[in-house]
């Protein structure tokens, strides 16, 4: 993914969608098919963007020629797995408000670590419905939770614009501990 935001998701027969992760600019979206032959989920762009295509054979060649790159690819997959584990526990153990806050917190943290924008001023590229699909909630419920979070001081919200003035408070409301992201340097 060169520019833009993407979601990984699974679709049920009745059309219901579960977003299982958000991917950010710079992410390798499909290392999976270097080693696995079946697509078990979908990639969907959440915004306009640009994608770079790399032939699988070339990717595999680079990995086998340069062990440190192979290690980086493996590490990427392991960190993805850690994030998936957190998303499972998010939906399984957190209430609606905390779930929404956690997904937002994670997005803001990852984005900031990539230098895509400051914590204080976030333009969220996702709709209420997409946040709902990521948290197992309806868009109306998400909207209500965002309002509640804003009333509790997590952020000031205007549509998809979020101003975070108290990052510590936001993280506390989200039950957010960024260590599962395995990032080298964190704010």
């Amino acid at each position, binding site marked *: 993914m060169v520019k833009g935001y993407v979601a990984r998701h699974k679709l049920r027969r009745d059309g219901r969608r579960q977003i299982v992760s958000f991917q950010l600019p710079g992410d390798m979206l499909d290392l999976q098919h270097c080693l696995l032959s079946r697509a078990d989920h979908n990639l969907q762009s959440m915004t306009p963007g640009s994608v770079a295509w790399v032939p699988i054979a070339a990717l595999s060649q680079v990995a086998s020629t340069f062990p440190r790159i192979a290690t980086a690819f493996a590490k990427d997959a392991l960190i993805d797995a850690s994030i998936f584990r957190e998303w499972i526990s998010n939906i399984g153990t957190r209430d609606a408000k905390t779930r929404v806050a956690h997904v937002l917190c994670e997005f803001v943290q990852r984005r900031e670590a990539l230098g895509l924008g400051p914590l204080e001023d976030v333009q969220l590229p996702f709709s209420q419905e997409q946040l709902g699909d990521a948290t197992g*909630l*309806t868009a*109306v419920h998400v909207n209500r939770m965002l309002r509640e979070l804003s009333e509790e001081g997590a952020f000031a919200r205007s549509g998809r614009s979020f101003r975070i003035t108290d990052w510590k408070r936001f993280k506390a409301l989200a039950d957010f501990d960024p260590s599962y992201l395995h990032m080298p340097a964190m704010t």
Partner: protein
Amino acid sequence: MTRFFFHLDECGSVTQDLEGRELPDLDAARVCAVAAARDVMSGELAKETICFSCHIDISDANGTVLETVPFKYAVKIDGL
């Protein structure tokens, strides 16, 4: 497809829907509103209290309310 908006009215405290959702028709919007009512109530149930006086107003892009879905019509209660 038409864009419908779902405003949550909790006994006078209104959470406006500024985004809306594209749906084929009002029937589909009603289905969506019922699902949303049940979802909001599920969250409330986990915290003990459900309020049946709340409702969802389905409106068009001009803000005209097309239909109101009361919470109490989104559930059936047995065994009371």
